[in-house]
């Protein structure tokens, strides 16, 4: 017999339904925000704080000076202190900025910035609160004439709103800036995917940043700024018609102040003048004088069709702030001692109406290992992406690019193999990440296509270098082989014709000359470790799990370096 439990009524079930606050949702799904483990939690917390500081400084036109300090509190607890010289935050905003999820200034703006959603730093505060119960301590001042404010904050996760523990006015010897102090459960380990790596890469792609970093071992590293020029300011733009979806369009039509469809199009969108607006209306078979607020769903769809059938100029590029190929190449030179560098910037492109720009840098040969997969460094809006490389559109694009024609080997569905580092940067008003933790780029075909074009453009230059090197290598081997037999030719002739020693030497000399004339001059493409003056070996060491193997200079023909191997093992033993 099956025991029948009495069924619940719809009314009873209805009582179980409740609203879920974002905070509660993310409290349960903290992995979505990059807090899946203790090590990553530390990196994510610092990343969110530093990203915010950088955004704030750039917006205010201040050369950023940021200090990051991690203090080991024992028992897997760490105190993180991040302080900047940004514009500061006005008193009223402080609690919401740091203790309310999805509260931010950047979500609605169409311009390139690191933060997007207004989740990051509040999530860190929430994580700290969940793991140690301690409140976040915020100090901020907006100018000399103002006093600094000090807050201790909790998040009320049930209602997603700040809970103020302490609210004081303090003396802070700083013109302007913000400081956040968090205690959280974490673990610190140097090497790949560490705080160290994140900070280093950040310093490299943000050459205007001065960063002071104190790690848990109380060692201080200073990354001085490489330029006093702030990156080009990213302008805010209106959406481009190509990226707007129907629902969004209907919403815009309802809320606009414009009286006619034509003025709606010109005022709410970028790259639409009155002529273009007329063409759109014509292509959609709607009168330009239609009142936007009266338009129904069918008309809106006609308008969409009209947009689709009209050729429009690409969105303006001043909303983006590219690293520039020169600085990207310089960054690679600082970090990697290679033989060949190349960097390219693509023109701006659009996905879903959002302008974006791809930049690619490559470093080939030199110190890098020739028998392992190429290293991929990913950046989005100047933020290094350290996790989830496998699920990232950057990675997919690199894999889908045919590297064999550039002289590298590549297995199907894998990164190319060779002494190569590829750095890719996407700058966009809205970077599509696969999740809120912003670790990987989503797979938009338009973006992948652009990345591939950039990779191909740089790849062609790489290929001509690699192939030239291979040719020179083969030619050198051939020449060495031929030269090996020159003494035999001269010795045989000497005996055959009873020549003198001087005459034998003449034969050798002439044969070498003949070889040179017939086969052309040999170009020396051997790796010169001292050629790259930008290389900073101390910097290169930061955030690496393995010390770099010493000087192995040729492609593919790398000899095993016993010293390097031994070093590796002793390093591990420590």
């Amino acid at each position, binding site marked *: 017999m099956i025991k029948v439990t009495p069924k619940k009524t719809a009314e009873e079930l209805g009582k179980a339904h409740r609203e879920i606050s974002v905070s509660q949702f993310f409290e349960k799904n903290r992995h979505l925000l990059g807090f899946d483990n203790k090590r990553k939690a530390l990196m994510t917390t610092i990343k969110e704080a530093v990203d915010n500081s950088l955004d704030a400084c750039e917006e205010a036109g201040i050369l950023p000076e940021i200090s990051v300090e991690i203090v080991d509190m024992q028992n897997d607890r760490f105190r993180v202190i991040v302080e900047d010289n940004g514009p500061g935050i006005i008193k009223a905003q402080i609690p919401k900025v740091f203790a309310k999820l999805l509260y931010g200034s950047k979500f609605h703006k169409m311009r390139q910035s690191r933060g997007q959603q207004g989740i990051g730093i509040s999530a860190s505060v929430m994580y700290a609160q969940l793991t140690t119960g301690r409140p976040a301590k915020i100090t901020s001042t907006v100018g000399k004439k103002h006093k600094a404010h000090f807050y201790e904050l909790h998040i009320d996760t049930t209602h997603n709103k700040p809970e103020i523990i302490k609210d004081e006015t303090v003396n802070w010897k700083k013109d302007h800036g913000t400081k956040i102090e968090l205690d959280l459960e974490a673990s610190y380990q140097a090497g790949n995917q560490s705080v160290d790596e994140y900070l280093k890469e950040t310093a490299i792609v943000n050459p205007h940043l001065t960063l002071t970093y104190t790690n848990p071992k109380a060692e201080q590293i200073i990354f001085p700024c490489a330029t006093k020029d702030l990156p080009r300011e990213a302008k805010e733009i209106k959406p481009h018609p190509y990226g707007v979806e129907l629902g969004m369009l209907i919403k815009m039509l309802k809320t606009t102040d414009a009286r006619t469809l034509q003025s709606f199009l010109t005022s709410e969108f970028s790259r639409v003048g009155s002529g273009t607006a007329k063409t759109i209306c014509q292509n959609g078979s709607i009168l330009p004088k239609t009142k936007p607020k009266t338009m129904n769903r069918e008309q809106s769809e006609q308008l969409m069709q009209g947009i689709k059938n009209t050729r429009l100029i690409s969105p303006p590029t001043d909303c983006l702030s590219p690293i520039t190929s020169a600085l990207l190449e310089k960054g690679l030179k600082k970090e990697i001692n290679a033989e060949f560098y190349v960097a390219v910037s693509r023109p701006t492109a659009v996905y879903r109406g959002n302008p974006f720009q791809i930049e690619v840098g490559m470093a080939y040969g030199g110190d890098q290992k020739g028998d392992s997969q190429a290293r991929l460094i990913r950046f989005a809006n100047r933020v290094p992406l350290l996790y989830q490389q496998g699920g990232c559109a950057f990675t997919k694009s690199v894999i889908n690019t045919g590297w064999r024609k550039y002289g590298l080997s590549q297995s199907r569905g894998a990164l190319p193999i060779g002494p190569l580092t590829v750095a890719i940067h996407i700058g966009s008003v809205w970077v599509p990440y696969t999740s809120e933790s912003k670790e990987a780029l989503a797979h938009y075909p338009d973006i992948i296509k652009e990345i591939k074009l950039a990779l191909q453009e740089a790849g062609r230059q790489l290929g001509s270098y690699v192939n030239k090197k291979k040719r020179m290598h083969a030619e050198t081997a051939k020449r060495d082989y*031929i030269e090996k037999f020159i003494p035999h030719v001269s*010795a045989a002739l000497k005996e055959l014709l009873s020549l003198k020693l001087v005459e034998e030497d003449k034969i050798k000399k002439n044969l070498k000359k003949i070889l040179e004339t017939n086969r052309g001059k040999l170009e020396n493409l051997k790796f010169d470790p001292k050629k790259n003056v930008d290389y900073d070996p101390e910097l290169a060491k930061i955030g690496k799990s393995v010390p770099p193997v010493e000087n192995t200079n040729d492609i593919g023909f790398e000899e095993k370096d016993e010293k390097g191997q031994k070093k590796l093992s002793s390093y591990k033993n420590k």
Partner: protein
Amino acid sequence: MKKAKKSLAATKINEIAKLVYSTILKKKQPELSMPLRSLTNVQYDPKKGYFELLGKFKERTLTATTIKTFAQSLRLMNLSKELIEKDDIATKREAYYVSKNWADARFKEQVESDTVMDDIEAMLMVNREQIGFIPEEKGGDVAGKLVVVDKDPDTGKDIKIDCTKMGSGAYSVPSKVEDLKFETNAKFILAIETAGMFQRLVKHNYWKKANCILVSMGGVPTRACRRFIRRLSDDKKLPVYVFVDNDPYGIGNIYRTFKVGSGNAAHINEYFCVPRARFLGVTPQDVIDYKLPTHPLKEVDFKKIKDMLKNDPFIKHHKEWQKALKQMQQMKVRSEQQALAKWGLNFVIEKYLPEKIRNPKKFLP
């Protein structure tokens, strides 16, 4: 005569060396040019009776693929020059070992040194004995109605070797046959592929019955063996009959090389083949006529037949041979000389050879 020839080789070596040297002094790329030794570079003129070189050449110079053999050729030419000057000889194997002093330019295997040696021969258009090199191989065995006149190496006096008085053994052809003289009243020379068949014919004094000279070739005849039979048959105007297995190897390698020479040694074919030779057997038709036991032809055999029909200038010239080979192709079988033993051990002596020799005109060309 002998000395004149030798100094001719030495002169040629000297000329070539001088040319290479003067080219180098002019800062031009030096080259050694030698005839291409292959079937593609020979033609068959039945009036002359042997494979003659066409004009194709290969070059050795300062390229990655030829520099090693270029240097080796010069070094080997030097060794040859020394040998000629000292009136000494070196076996092919010894020459190979001498090269072990040449460091990077040494030969790895004897085939390599043999090839370079053959190239020098071809380049100078002389045979290797003239440049001081001799082969290891034996020249072949002889029995029958022949007296060979040789010289005592110490005294220089004539020695007469009577090949009828070898008992159950045989006279062994020396590696240099140029100075031998012959006395004979035999009617023909019978050249035999296998030592076994030769033994049988010697044992039963077949040469006495048939009044002939028997020569055992032991597979593809050596240069000395070919030169020996050539000189003997030319001197005494004797017909030469060849008795080999009925298979593509017996016809295409043994008989063809014996009669007209090979592509590989085309430069010396003129002296080292026996154009008057005729093919006694075993023919594909014999297999039918004498109901001989057979073995099936293998894949390689069919390939060889096809290749001969297509590329061998000698076969291409003789319709009879094309017919015979096509017959073999159709029969899909081969037969050994010794298969005749099916009809009794002495069937070959009592029946087969007498029947055949009665009608030499029927022999294949």
